[in-house]
């Protein structure tokens, strides 16, 4: 099938060779788990346990009755030692349940449900109970995403296997090693949404994964799309554009154009939640970077501090280093290795001193237009950066600052090294405030 191209975007170095050929390995058990009560988009959970309680692996330990939320589970058995604010990947403190992990772990209790006969309601419930959220990074509760408003007709399911961020290979390895689970997961979502077409989109720098899935796929309703490798191919808006040639309107969501997008990791998690009633207590994390002794794709229990993973991978080679959670284009630099892996953590990247750029001195815009040329939202980042820097909020709004998806390309290409994304990020709340006053 023909794949459309989106305008803008850029090809950037992949840096994926560190881990793309390494099999997913089970990470060793950490001594302590830190499980944030809020690790998704939506309402925070209330703890169901108290300090001193014994918890079992897979036991639900946090829940809320709010609709947009996802419960949390103990990833390992142990004892609750604290329920207190701990540092989270955004740099803020988030109320978390801290568990001292038992040295002896029991096997996780799993059921075996027949996925052929399961009903829609059972699928939704399983997803909800398992606490599944979007595992590509955005961490939006999946049960909510899969229940679009009744007035929106959905005719296409898009599965995002692009993994367009450099360094990350967790989705790549998952597609390669668990194609069967992925395909069954996709079928479950199709059944649930009653759509008869699913498009599995994989960038053409992962041909081995495309081949692995193709060999296992017997369902003609699941269409494999080989996407050109171009950042940000995995962005929701650009994926819908490329796969279906539909443009999500400004401020809209994929279901406005009849599409729902799921990440490949989420599909596998959904399959496991329905088949085995397995809660989302672990995920694949790419622990990588030039500054790490032994980069790996690790199967990690949710709540494991990133410092544990860095040690597992042989430790940091050289300091000063920069430790980033997520991809290098949109991820967050960390100050503290006690920050835990959460459901939306795709990678931990340790950058070497020469790439560990501090906030650089930057210069005036010389209007070279490199950002204009590559902006996938077809904005004018050059103008936006000037308006946002000067706090000209009305002008920034006029030039559509709110439509910026913060992909980072403008700041990546800028020869004046202007922190364009950061300037726009800072201005967005001010624009919303201004709009709400009107």
């Amino acid at each position, binding site marked *: 099938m023909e794949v459309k191209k*989106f305008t803008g975007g850029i090809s950037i170095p992949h840096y994926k060779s560190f881990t793309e050929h390494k099999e997913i390995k089970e990470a060793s058990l950490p*001594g*302590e788990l830190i499980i944030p009560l809020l690790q998704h988009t939506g309402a925070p959970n209330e703890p169901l346990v108290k300090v001193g309680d014994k918890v079992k692996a897979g036991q639900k330990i946090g829940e809320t009755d709010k609709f947009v939320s996802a419960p949390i589970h103990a990833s390992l058995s142990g004892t609750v030692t604290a329920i207190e604010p701990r540092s989270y990947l955004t*740099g803020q403190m988030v109320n978390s349940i801290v568990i001292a992990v038992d040295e002896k772990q029991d096997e996780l209790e799993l059921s075996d449900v027949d996925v052929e006969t399961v009903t829609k309601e059972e699928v939704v419930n399983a997803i909800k109970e398992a606490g599944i959220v979007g595992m590509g990074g955005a961490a939006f509760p999946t049960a909510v995403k899969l229940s679009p408003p009744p007035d929106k*007709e*959905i*005719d*296409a399911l898009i599965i995002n296997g692009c993994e367009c961020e*450099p360094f990350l290979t967790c989705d790549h390895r998952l597609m390669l090693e668990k194609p069967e689970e992925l395909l069954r997961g996709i079928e479950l979502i199709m059944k649930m949404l009653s759509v008869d*077409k699913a498009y599995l989109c994989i960038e053409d720098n992962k041909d081995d994964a495309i081949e692995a899935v193709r060999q296992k796929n017997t369902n003609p309703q699941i269409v494999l799309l080989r996407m050109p490798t171009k950042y940000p191919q995995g962005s929701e*808006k650009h994926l819908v554009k490329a796969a279906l040639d539909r*443009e*999500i*309107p*400004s401020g809209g969501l994929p279901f406005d*154009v*009849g599409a729902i997008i799921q990440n490949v990791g989420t599909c596998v998690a959904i399959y496991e939640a329905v088949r085995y009633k397995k809660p989302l207590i672990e995920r694949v994390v790419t622990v990588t970077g030039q500054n790490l002794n032994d980069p790996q794709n690790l199967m990690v229990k949710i709540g494991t501090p990133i*410092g*544990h993973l860095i040690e597992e991978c042989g430790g940091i080679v050289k*300091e*000063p280093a*920069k430790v*980033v959670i997520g991809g*290098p*284009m949109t*991820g*967050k*630099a*960390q*100050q*503290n*290795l*006690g920050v835990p892996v959460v459901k939306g953590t795709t990678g931990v*990247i340790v*950058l070497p001193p020469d*790439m560990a*750029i*501090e*906030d650089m001195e930057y*210069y*005036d815009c*010389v*209007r*070279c*237009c490199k950002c*204009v040329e590559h902006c996938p*939202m*077809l904005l004018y980042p050059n103008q936006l950066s000037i308006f946002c820097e000067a706090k000209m909020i009305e002008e920034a709004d006029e030039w*559509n600052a709110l*439509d910026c998806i*913060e992909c980072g*390309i403008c*700041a*990546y290409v*800028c*020869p*004046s090294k202007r*922190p364009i*994304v*950061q300037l726009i990020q800072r201005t967005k709340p001010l624009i919303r405030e201004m709009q709400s006053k009107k």
Partner: protein
Amino acid sequence: MVNEARNFIVSSSPHIKDEGTISKAMRDVFIALIPVTLVAIYFFRLYAVFFIAVCLVTAILTELLFRNLMNRKARPGDWSALLTGLFVALLFPASTPWWQGVLATFLAVGVAKELVGGLGWNRFNPALFGRVALILLAPLFAFVYSWFEPLNVYFGPIDVMTQATPLAMMKMGLEMPPLGQLFLAFPGGAMSEVSPLAILIGAAYLLYKKHLSWRIPLSILATVVVLTLISGGNPLYHLVTGGLLLGSFFMATDWVTSPFTEKGKIIFGVAIGILIVIFRIGFSITEGVAYSILIMNFFVPYIERKTSRSHFGKIKAVPVPMANQK
């Protein structure tokens, strides 16, 4: 070590950056000007070397002076003042009295660039501003010219220096030199007008390095060709004479003073082309290219406002096809 807070470097995303910098881009423009400069030195010898050197030194000193006066920090490795100096020099004939070079460079770097906020904020192309200011000030020089005369330097006779420029020959209706020679090199006029070939080599390098937008030069040149054809002239002569090629590839494409919209670049180029033909044919003004670009520099913000593209998602959502229609 798990909870140990160490000093890691924290900054906002993206955490990888392209290697391109302003100084690398400036350096590339310098490299692109090497052929033109070498041709000038080949024909005008010490006159060219001396005049270029004077302009470069003036550019550096002017920048230093204004940065100090205005308390602005310099970019490390910023070549932009030097580049302006070189451009100013190349816009003059090599035999120009050196103090005119000093004045033009001072106006270019000091007034057109630093005074309005420095690189990035200037509305007019600095080098052209300096050059045109001197043309407009020329009547005043009639008085001061004699004072400065003793200061003129003399490096011996060079025949080609007093030769009429092809553009002037065209105006006077003289017989033109063969096109091939004009294209290769024909000394006369400004140093940058000597060899269209040298300019094209430089432009090709800039295109290869992706510093040039083809939209502007192409639309200028196409407009000039079409309009001269309509007016019954020979477009090829117009292409290889005067500052047309330098203006199209190096001056009108200046990042700071040209529109950042794609449609705007074409409108900008076509308008410059029209103005050049009006100046050259309608008014017989040989500096038409410089005037045309400066005039259009002024309109850049208006062009940009009228030609900005619609961003992603601005369209209304298309009706969703029914599930069974696929």
